[in-house]
């Protein structure tokens, strides 16, 4: 029996057995859109459709439960003698699709964007892989089951005379992209749960959260126990002096810093010309080594040691724990292109920087870029957080960071705040809750000031799944006291 046949059909109103578009429907939409295209050229289509089941609670009561669905069809038309334009709609009848195609053709005649003449390479033909990021548990996690969990969580928090606020969400979605070999289609699920517990007087706050494609991997009761424990332990914090501290960062806190490193590896640095060199127009950023006037080229830090040799940062799109669809519509010709496994940093050495397909074609004479999604896996060690605490003479235990913001792209210098639980460690023990801090620090400095690493675990990162260890590092820079809870 196929997976879909097992899906429950709830006879509530209009049949509920299709909460997003099937492959057949997407195929038909693409066929029809292509049929409407006039004047040759290229027609690319992206279709996304989704279902969300959501539950939100605050002050120990559920304050909204919802069920939502939507669809988006984005048509890209490239004309042989003109430009390209995109139009999107969320209606799938023929007139809407036809009108979208015509509108894209009308706009394309303004000569916008990269013209089709600029596209000299054929769309890549690949053996596209299907991800295994579908969970029936997620798909079947119905509103009554969600309600029961919320009741259980809020009861426990209320019994402890604290206030709970939180959110759980399950979704199922399909993604279709036109590719050289026809249409790529994937279905996936996603789930997340996070909660904040505070005392009524607002002197303590604790948080816990997790995301996964599989609701079964999320233990909401364990999360609520952790948030409650942190809330109780964080009450009545005392202020201590800002300055440099040894820090023990829980995995969520590490992620809030590391996502900026991954962004810089992954996103903009499309200016590479082969190993060790970046193009003249792109010599800034943390992984650029400056412009070489003699050779007239920029240099990157590829092949150089950039962080502690215990650190490896990689991404494998087929790893279900990283939960991504292993292809994207590239920004060169809008066709689907595979996301390949990549090791960005290998034992501290910078191995790869991202570049897009347009760059591969123009500068490398190749046909495929080195792109990835923002998810990542970071290597760790074997030290537990308890062991890190035991071996710390004086330091701070950080639950998570909030509102991180880039101050200097060259060094990935960030500012932001600690939130929902910060404790002072003295003589190998947690001694007291302390008031929050604003920090001014670069994750690259942290990765060069490592003391200990723990076991990598999934963290709360709904948009770009990440697997991250807790760590201990020295000389972390806290710059001002923040008396918000």
């Amino acid at each position, binding site marked *: 029996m196929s997976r879909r046949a097992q899906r429950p059909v709830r006879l509530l109103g209009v049949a509920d057995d299709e909460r997003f578009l099937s492959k057949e429907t997407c195929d038909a939409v693409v066929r029809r859109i292509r049929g409407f295209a006039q004047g040759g050229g290229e027609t690319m289509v992206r279709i996304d459709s989704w279902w969300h089941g959501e539950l939100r609670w605050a002050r120990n009561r559920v304050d909204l439960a919802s069920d939502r669905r939507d669809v988006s069809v984005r048509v890209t038309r490239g004309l042989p003698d003109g430009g390209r334009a995109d139009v999107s709609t*969320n209606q799938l009848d023929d007139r809407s699709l036809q009108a979208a195609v015509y509108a894209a053709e009308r706009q394309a005649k303004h000569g916008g964007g990269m013209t089709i003449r600029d596209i000299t390479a054929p769309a890549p033909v690949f053996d596209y892989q299907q991800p295994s990021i579908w969970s029936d548990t997620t798909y079947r996690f119905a509103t009554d089951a969600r309600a029961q969990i919320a009741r259980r969580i809020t009861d426990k928090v209320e019994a402890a005379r604290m206030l709970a606020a939180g959110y759980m969400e399950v979704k199922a979605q399909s993604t279709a992209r036109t590719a050289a070999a026809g249409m790529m289609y994937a279905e996936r699920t996603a789930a997340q749960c996070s909660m904040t517990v505070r005392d009524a007087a607002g002197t303590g706050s604790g948080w816990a959260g997790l995301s996964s494609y599989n609701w079964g991997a999320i233990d909401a009761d364990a999360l609520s126990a952790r948030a409650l424990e942190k809330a109780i332990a964080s009450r009545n914090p005392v202020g201590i002096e800002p300055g440099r501290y040894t820090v023990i960062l829980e995995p969520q806190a590490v992620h809030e810093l590391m996502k900026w490193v991954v962004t810089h590896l992954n996103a903009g640095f499309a200016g590479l010309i082969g190993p060790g060199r970046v193009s003249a127009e792109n010599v800034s950023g943390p992984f650029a080594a400056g412009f070489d006037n003699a050779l007239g080229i920029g240099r990157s830090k590829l092949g150089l040691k950039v962080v502690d040799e215990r650190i490896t940062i990689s991404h494998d799109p087929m790893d279900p724990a990283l939960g991504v669809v292993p292809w994207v519509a590239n920004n060169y010709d809008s066709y689907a292109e595979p996301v390949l496994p990549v090791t960005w940093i290998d034992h501290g050495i910078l191995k790869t920087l991202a570049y897009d397909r347009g760059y591969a074609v123009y500068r490398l004479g190749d046909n495929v870029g080195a792109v990835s999604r923002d998810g990542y896996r970071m290597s760790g060690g074997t030290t537990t957080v308890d062991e890190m605490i035991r071996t710390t003479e004086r330091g701070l235990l950080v639950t998570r960071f909030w509102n991180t913001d880039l101050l200097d792209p060259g060094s990935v210098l960030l500012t932001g705040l600690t939130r929902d639980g910060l404790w002072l460690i003295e003589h190998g023990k947690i001694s007291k809750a302390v008031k929050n801090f*604003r920090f001014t620090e670069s994750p690259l400095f942290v990765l060069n000031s490592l003391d200990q690493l723990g076991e990598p675990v999934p963290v709360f990162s709904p948009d770009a799944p990440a697997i991250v260890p807790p760590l201990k590092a020295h000389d972390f820079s806290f710059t001002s006291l923040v008396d918000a809870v």
Partner: protein
Amino acid sequence: MTDERRSGASPYFPYNLEMPITRRDLLKRGVAAAVVAAVPRPLFVHLGRAREPVPPIEDPRLKDLAFSALEAARGAGATYADVRLTHDYSRSFNPALSNIYDAEAMTVGVRALVDGYWGFASSAVWSADELARLGREAVHQAKTNAVTGKPRTVLLAPVTAIADSHWNMPVARDPFDVPVDEILDFMGGLAIYARRVNRHVRDIYNPATFVRQEKAYASTVGSYCTQRLYRSDGAFFFNLRKDEKVIGGRIDALSSAGMGWELYTADRIPLARDRSLREEIRRVLDELDEDLTLPLRPIDVGRYDTVFDNASVANLLAETLGRATELDRALGYEANADGTSYIDAPLQMIGTYNAGAPLLSVTGNRTESGGCATVKWDDEGVVPDEFSLVKDGVLTDFQTTRESAGWLKDYYDKSGKPFRSHGCANADSAISPPMQHSPNLVMTPGHEALDFNGFLAGISNGIAIRWLNVNMDFQHLNGLGIGGSTYEVKHGKKTALLNSAGILFRAPEFWKGLLSVGGAASARRLGGTERKGEPPQMTYHSVTAPPAVAKQLALVDPRRRA
């Protein structure tokens, strides 16, 4: 792999992938003809038995469609329900690339209340069957939690039923009626003009997005209303580069507004510019050109009286008091998202808390002409009022919806104020549940006719900041402000541009240290956004603020590590 789902037509997405309909077919259907001519991309809707192009939002037949959701919700046991239908158009330009991106979406959302619990259901299909399904689904969501959860009470502030009304936000020119060539040419012309009047202008970035939202609303109170709302998000960023020096600038008069194409073409716009857009660009360039002669200097850490321009005051206001006076946030309803509020005991602090110096007064509204949050009715059918948040430095009220106003009923009764919602219920589209979002905020100007340059003249040793950005904590209490441009001011004159400068502040002390605010003629309106909720929704609102001076702020180097 076998697939047992039906191909083509599906039960949920009733897009029958039908054959194209000819124009002649449409002409036969009466209403259709005019609509096809007027709407560039007719989407389809089920109003009767057949599909037909989406009519203008004021078509009376949409009322029956809306009420089919309410009847279903009531039939399923809702004590209260409301429904929104939105039809959104947006057109984005990136003139540098001659890129145009059009998007259109139709959505519908139904909200139901059962025994104090809210349920919500939404989708992309406008048909009576689907609206009935959504009505039942919203009730199912609410009821499930009402049965499972402990008692919860909701007291909705009273509302007057709207008898079938329609409102168009007044705009001089609907941006979707303007040929795209005209818009691209106009924007290209601005860039050429800027480079012509100042040869140091580089890196111009001037994207724009125009939005039209048609919205129908009905509730079991018996209200039915439709609106056509507009928003134009302009932008004009540039750098002035001379030798080593780079000064970033922007044209505030193009920030988001509840206006049409006239945001660009009007001779003048109250609270935005007193002259044509080209003359305004020239004025800003002339002012910044003088800055190119200033020396660059590192900061001298310390405390200084600080002059802020309109954009900085608007940002500070929105990010501190603007967020802190959201009642749901103050009571912990956003605790797991952006956070709570430094006004942390709202029921005790209202009417007594000193939010700032006596010269600080702040109001909220969704009524001002040109405001991004301006509507005739909010997403609960409430006619918004103009209301005081801070009066002469004292906290007087909060931003509310019908439910959150209920939390303040005792205060309203005691103080003799009317028990009503201030009309802050809003959602980015019908696909999202309505919640309290920021209204337009207005900081009352001072009595003296002072402006930014006037303030500079009064500073003997201080700093001045343009285009300050702020990074706030989760109670919007402690902030780090990072200036767009920060100046050293000595003896009434700008004497240097400061490198890597920022201010550290605590919101209550900042507002209590307010020394002076600019006069009415110096006030400017800027568009802003707010992200709120789970999943996050982004909504727009305007903030009107004069320039201002605050005393003895901590000037720091934000990049300096401890």
